[in-house]
């Protein structure tokens, strides 16, 4: 199982800030594709992924137990 965190417009689009997914080892790219299909979220290509609070690349490996955050373009400051 992996824990997925959603923020800003993604959180509103999906209707919640946290999702539990029952999947095995995967990659950032695969996970993005899965979520894009499942929740019909547009514009995920501009969304960064953090695995366990560290920015990740498209081919980074996600293991069961990881926390994966979907990080839309930030606008703090």
């Amino acid at each position: 199982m992996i824990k997925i965190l959603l923020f800003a417009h993604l959180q509103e689009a999906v209707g919640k800030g946290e999702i539990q997914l029952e999947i095995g080892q995967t990659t950032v790219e695969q996970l993005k594709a899965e979520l894009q299909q499942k929740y019909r979220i547009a514009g995920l290509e501009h969304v960064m992924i953090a695995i366990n609070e560290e920015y990740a690349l498209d081919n980074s490996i996600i293991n069961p137990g990881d926390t994966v955050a979907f990080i839309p373009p930030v606008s703090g400051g």
Partner: protein
Amino acid sequence: MSDALFEIVDVPVRIEQLIKKVERRKAGAITTFIGTVREWTKGRRTIFLEYQAYIPMAIKMLAAIGEEVETKWPETRIAITHRIGRLEISEIAVGIAVSSPHRKAAYEANEYAIERIKQIVPIWKKEHWDDGETWIGDQLENVPYSSGFPSVEEVES
């Protein structure tokens, strides 16, 4: 606000408290940057703002910016507090304080920090206008990204 150099808070940012965190006997210059909620943006009126953060990672990224700063400008010390939740016009969203023996580094390091915050810290702003609301994406004024976001290479550089 606590004594921590890098904080995400849901209470008003106190600038004098922030300054105290970087004061040192060897510092001759302290710069602060205060980002406030502006009423007008490109002709559109803001009623209030709402900030959301991925708090633990945001604190880590603020600390990472602190490390970058203290590597680039060795004798500086920096503290950053970002507020989240609902903010009214003129309230402080972010405060950055940098102390340094000399003023040039204090200005440069401070400006660098706010640019980096806008690049890598997972905080989002929702604008509430009088005719609608929206989450704001990339709002960098000076750094153009073709994708609207820095690449991981840039983030990790």
